């Protein structure tokens, strides 16, 4: 067991996989010599050399196209898109090409690509560098979507993503980078499609993702003070989705909340809410409630950004009021 920051866990997880598979390569802007603009790839160039860790031009379509072409001809690839907002400039490769090629070709091609990207708000970067776009990816058939909330999950889910033969979009949260936690020694390989109950409870289920997980946990702590026992689920993997964990929990608690950083409309929480409102309808004892960033572009000013993302206060208040 060693303590690792979420930031360092990224390079640690990648290194584990690059040592295992000598074919695995990585490319992206400023990832090599500079160690990444978020310092998430420090040390990888030194260990694996410039053939396997490659700096690219600012050409996101070319980056992901190269990843896809290499992957479909036998070389697994990790590609970095520096900010998840930039998926927009290469969205065709992600949504129309990588996601669909296996199906369209009747199963002739595999696309073992992991697209790593820095997601989410809290850095006062404004509307074009702070988005939570995990729902952009969840809605595309053919993409797997993962968003870890802890250093250990970064390592384990990275391994699972790299070893998965399908394209996986791997969301690293900018505001979690500095946080530290224990990471077990030895090879760590997690499983996609598995949520984790991070706090058990009996009165309501709160599904959260990435930065929202610690906030939901803190809110649950406070709710406990009011005698409300909240179960908190770290969804971890949006596709595949661990619906069993979610439905099982609602079966127990009869109340369902989501805490989403993506803006409201068509967020991942809407999907979960719709599943619960269908399949767990008879278990529910009250409305299904979503706590989301409002449906606005994210503002830059500290004061405004802090009002936008779901806060511990907002989670706490919403659950308390609606469960009363």
């Amino acid at each position, binding site marked *: 067991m060693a303590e690792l920051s979420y930031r360092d866990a990224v390079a640690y997880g990648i290194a584990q996989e690059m040592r295992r598979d000598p*074919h695995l*390569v990585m490319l992206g802007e400023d990832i090599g010599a500079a160690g990444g603009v978020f310092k998430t790839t420090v040390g990888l160039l030194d260990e694996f050399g410039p*053939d396997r860790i*490659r700096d*690219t*031009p600012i*050409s*996101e*379509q*070319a980056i*992901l*196209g*190269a*990843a*896809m*072409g*290499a*992957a*479909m*001809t*036998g*070389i697994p*690839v990790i590609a970095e898109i520096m900010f998840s907002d930039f998926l927009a400039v290469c969205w*065709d*490769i992600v949504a*129309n*090409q990588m996601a669909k*090629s*296996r*199906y*369209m*070709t*009747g*199963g*002739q*091609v*595999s696309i073992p690509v992991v697209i790593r990207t820095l997601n989410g708000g809290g850095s006062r970067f404004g509307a074009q560098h702070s988005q939570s776009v995990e729902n952009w990816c969840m809605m595309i*058939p*053919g993409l797997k979507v993962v968003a870890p909330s802890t250093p250990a999950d970064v390592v384990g889910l990275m391994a699972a993503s790299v070893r*998965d*033969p*399908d394209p996986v979009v791997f969301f690293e949260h900018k505001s979690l980078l500095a946080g530290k936690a224990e990471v077990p020694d030895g090879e760590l390989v997690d499983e996609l*499609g598995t949520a984790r109950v991070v706090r058990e409870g009996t009165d309501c289920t709160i599904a959260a993702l990435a930065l929202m997980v610690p906030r939901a946990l803190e809110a649950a702590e406070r709710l406990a003070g009011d005698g409300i026992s909240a179960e908190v689920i770290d969804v971890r993997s949006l*596709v*595949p*989705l*661990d*619906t*069993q964990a979610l439905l099982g929990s609602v079966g127990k608690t009869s109340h369902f909340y989501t805490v989403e950083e993506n803006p409201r409309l068509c967020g991942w929480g809407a999907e979960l809410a719709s599943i619960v409102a269908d399949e767990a309808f008879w278990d529910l004892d009250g409305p299904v409630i979503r706590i989301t960033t409002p449906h606005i572009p994210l503002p830059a000013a500290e004061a405004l950004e802090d009002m936008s993302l779901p806060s511990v206060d907002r989670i706490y208040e919403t659950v308390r009021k609606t469960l009363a």
Partner: protein
Amino acid sequence: MSTEVHDPGAYDYSQRPARLPVDVDHSNKDLAIPLQDRVEMYELQQVLRQFEKRAYDLFMQNLVKGTSHLSLGMEAVAAGFGLALRPDDYSFATYRGHAHTIARGAALGPVMAELLGRENGILKGKGGSMHLTSVEHGMMGSYAIIGAHLTIANGAAWAAQLRGTDQVAVAFFGDGTTNIGAFHEALNFAAIWDLPVVFVCENNLYMEYTPIDVVSAVPNPAADRGPAYGLDGIVVDGNDADAVFHVASQAVARARAGDGPSLIEAVTYRHGGHSRADPGKYRPADEVEAWLERDPIPMYHQRLLELGVPEGDLAAIQQSVAGRVEDATEFAKGGSPPGEEHLFTDVWAAGGSAWRN
């Protein structure tokens, strides 16, 4: 509202001056190409021509649903490259990909069956005409959104470079594709990494219905952009299989030797419209006529005769190709529509489509 605006082109494109083909370069006859290869290119062009004519007939009989984009008139490009490639090389094409798929050796029956949306189609009916792929023949797919596959071809070339094999990737695309962003990113990327990739613009002078010169800042939309990536701007007669084979072989050799990418503009013309229903009326009549006279296949037929191939041999090839196309048609018609069991397979490598447990 001012009307001092620069006119983006003549109002009625069919009234614009024709862009005529260049004269046949008879010296291409003297290129050092083995006669056997030439006969193969003849046969391949026959296959492409007869196959697509049949596809057109089947469309007229309402057996081909959806859309299809034919290469009729453009066969010399696919044939020239088909011969210049090694079986383990990679091809990437557009929605106009029948010719390139067949040129790599895919069986005609499953390709035809795919156009008919049958279970015995090369993609089990899931992809259709615009997405033909035959990985076993190095044909890595047909891509229907303009530009993407140039970047994907880079990846295949990169993989070859990483493995240290000397495989080459070739990406075919149209003149219209030279104005999209992915073209630019792909070319620069290939150049800086010295990737073994050959970019082949099939300049048929039109995007869908709009003449390429109306929307391009330079006369040769591909070749004139080569220098922006440190590449030569190579223009070749796309109606002459020998000329294509010649530049293709050079570019492929260069890539194999580790000397990086090439950009080739093959000027050609489609005999029909852009896609199934298009009569192509936006083209000046004299232009269409001139290009039909420059049909690559009769021209090549003539050349082979001049090179001493007996007329009878060529007739026998035509005949045998006709038989193969007939067989492919029967094979295709014999396939059933894909059943529901296919709907949910092949989204994931594990076989299925489940997004939940």
